[in-house]
């Protein structure tokens, strides 16, 4: 039995230690906002925050989470930057199919957490790992800038 702190709540899970966090969230904790896309850390749809950093949950085994706090898309709206980013995403009508957007929002929020006023190059560096098959990059970039411009 392992204990995880997710979105501020403590969860006990009875799963093997080598199970990636992604599948613990989705199949065992019913937190399905974090998505499966590629399983090899190439698409970014599974991004969550672990210890405040964006991490691909398809690669991080639950045994390696340790005591680090996990925040998922379901909880990111409770953080100031997460709320701003979500709002900016809706205002810019970013999503098309929407499947990648949870991961995009997690990466964008982590960017603002470490860099409140990112420029284009910063956005490239932070967002390059998140594929959008629909091609919403223009609006993602705009939404991040808009979120940064919102007062906290």
């Amino acid at each position, binding site marked *: 039995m392992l204990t995880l702190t997710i979105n501020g709540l403590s969860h006990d899970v009875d799963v093997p230690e080598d199970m990636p966090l992604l599948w613990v969230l989705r199949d065992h904790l019913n937190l399905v906002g974090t998505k499966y896309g590629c399983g090899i850390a190439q698409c970014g749809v599974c991004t969550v925050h672990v210890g405040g950093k964006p991490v691909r949950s398809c690669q991080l085994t639950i045994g390696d989470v340790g005591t680090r706090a996990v925040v998922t898309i379901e909880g990111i709206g409770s953080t100031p930057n997460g709320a701003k980013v979500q709002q900016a995403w809706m205002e810019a009508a970013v999503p098309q199919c929407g499947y990648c957007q*949870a991961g995009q929002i997690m990466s964008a929020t982590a960017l603002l957490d470490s860099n409140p006023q990112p420029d284009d190059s910063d956005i490239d560096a932070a967002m390059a790992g998140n594929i959008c098959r629909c091609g919403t990059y223009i609006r993602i*970039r705009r939404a991040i800038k808009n979120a940064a411009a919102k007062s906290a």
Partner: protein
Amino acid sequence: MADTQSSFARSDAYLSALIREVRSVPTASATVTMGRRTFFKLAGAGAAGLVLGFHLGGAAFAADGANVDTVDSKDQAMNAFIRIAPDNTITIYSKCPEIGQGIKTSFGVIIADELDADWNHVVMEQADINPKVYGSQGAGGSTSIPHAWDQLRQAGAGAKVMLIAAAAGQWAVDSSQITARDSILTHAASGRSATYGSLAAAAAKMPVPDPRDLKLKTRTEYRLIGKRYRGVDDPKVVSGQQLFGIDVQLPGMVYATYTKCPAAGGKVKSFNVDEIKAQRGVLDAFAVDGTGMMVEVMPGVAIIARDTWSAFQAKNKLQVDWDLSKASTDSTSQFSVQASKLATSFPQKADDKVGDVDKSFANAAKTVEAYYEYPFAAHVPLEPMNTTAYWHDGVMEMWVPTQQPDRGLPLIGKVAGIAPEKVVMHQTRVGGGFGRRLVNDYACEAAAIAQKVNAPVKLQWTREDDFAHDFYRPAGYHQFKGAIDKNGRLDAWREHFITFTADGKKEASGANLTDNLRYSIKAPNLRRAKTMLPLRIPTGAWRAPGDNAQVFAAQSFMHELSLASGRDHVEFLIDAVNRDVPELAPKDKSVNFSPKRATDVIRMCAEKAGWGKTLPKRSGLGLAWCYSHAGHVAQAIELSVDTNKQIKIGRIVVVLDVGPIIDMAGSEAQAQGASTDALSTAMGLKINIENGRIQEQNYNAYPILRMPFAPMTIDAYFIQSDNPPTGMGEPAFPALAPALGNSIFAATGERVRRLPLRDLGYALAV
């Protein structure tokens, strides 16, 4: 299993027919088909107020409605478009799948506009699947809007008529004096007003109007259509709420993987069943014979586990002994060699023939020849294929992220050995379609597996499964020869298209020269013929099927011809588009190509892109156009290319005429997204097949464009007209690649005749 060879062909024939059907855009005005439709009021809607639906087939609607309701009692209003609650909340049901094209928002806007509803109090819900009630419930071929345009407007207008009738009765006034706006009816003379919600119960008792009598709004009367909207599901998307097929979780659910032969057509001889069953978390493992149809269930091994990870882990340990005797041995490297050898032997039998190309070539001022090719491509939407199926009480209840839910019903019924009415399908949001989910193979597999599992089961493909078992965009090879007459006009167009066949008789699905191109490329002397290579790998519809690559070849070659003519490319194109030449017969009813609309988008695109301006060295401005999925589109790219073949995109302009725009924000998103997708595909995407096996297994080998290389802006412009609206999902894709190639030529003098560009050493600059 039936003979595999003919199964390949039958499977392909099914898909070809489906693509044709999906792509057919209604040409006639709405009244032609309206006689067959009747409104109905839904019994059993209870206190919810007015509920309006449609029925497409006679008087049996009530029974149908009741029947479906008993099958799935959770959603009383599943077969209706509109529900108005006493608190004035209006729930509108979107009948078609939301795959990212924004249809759930647009459908709501169309209905709400005719209904004069207050958009701020409209709630959009996904309708469940019942083609008898809703008619077509697919999303493909950019046809959701054109197919549903009249139906949805009539739903809104009809409901409004009934609300007005109810108010007129209560207020004892003439209904013509009542105006509707923002979900409120007003009688100006008496100063009375009432909300839709307060009138809904009374309205439900009013006679249902004949749709033919409804007066629909003209374009100037739209209040909601044409404005900018946020996606109706966006609040759920951005907060990670359960929405997609993959998100379905049911009590007691188990998880499945399904492993098919990496070479299409292979059968299971045996597998390490004992070892697999002994894996951690595995509940069961068994072979499935399947129907032998690619579009249904091919043979494979199902592993059932207590969670997805356990199923995936066991799958990694799976060792299947495949019977490869009937399996594909296709090789893309061999196809390329074969095609280039065949290209210059022009077949005797022509498919299209106008005038006399040989005579034209003999008398031409100039002739140009060129050979173009492009590769296979996979769809790989970000949500891997999945379906949740629950076999209970003789009913196959399913949650399927699909583009063609209605067409899945009979296939699933066949696989499960039950009547299609016993298949209950719930629509989920779809994490990307691009044509992949026109095929319901994964849903059929889930049904086959669910019948052997005593619980709800979610079938989850791995990303590797998705790469290996797609219905690919076929490669294609075009040998062109064109002639320019002494006036610098296009005089002849000869095209030898080397493509693929599954049955040896006609082109494989998605591998035919598209009618869009056949009718929009005009020349006084024209000859087209094809040679078909046998293919076992399944192909299908990939965003703007056929057009997505054929337009690259045709419009790049058109640029070569314009250069040979010595005339301005834009003028050359407009001249060619407007040539009065004998029409090819028979003319496809679904092609509504308009030389004028084409001319207008080309002109506007040139103007917006600054055509003719002086550019620095190694910079270029290129343009191309297409007629695709009923849209007339022109695209222009300004770029520079350095000596290392690194391309710096300056600006992309896209101009579309798709009739009136429903949701301006959504349409811009589609224009930008399709252009970005097209850039991504032209630059880098390619599927290699060797010995029948797909070589690319995941995104590491299939470089979808990423943020640092994506264009900073794409300027989209729309020419709006009174033409019926047509779809936005696809038209902005095809002309981008030739615009890119043409602009690279303008910058460097090097012609791009092969995709993807990375194979030619090009890359997008950072």
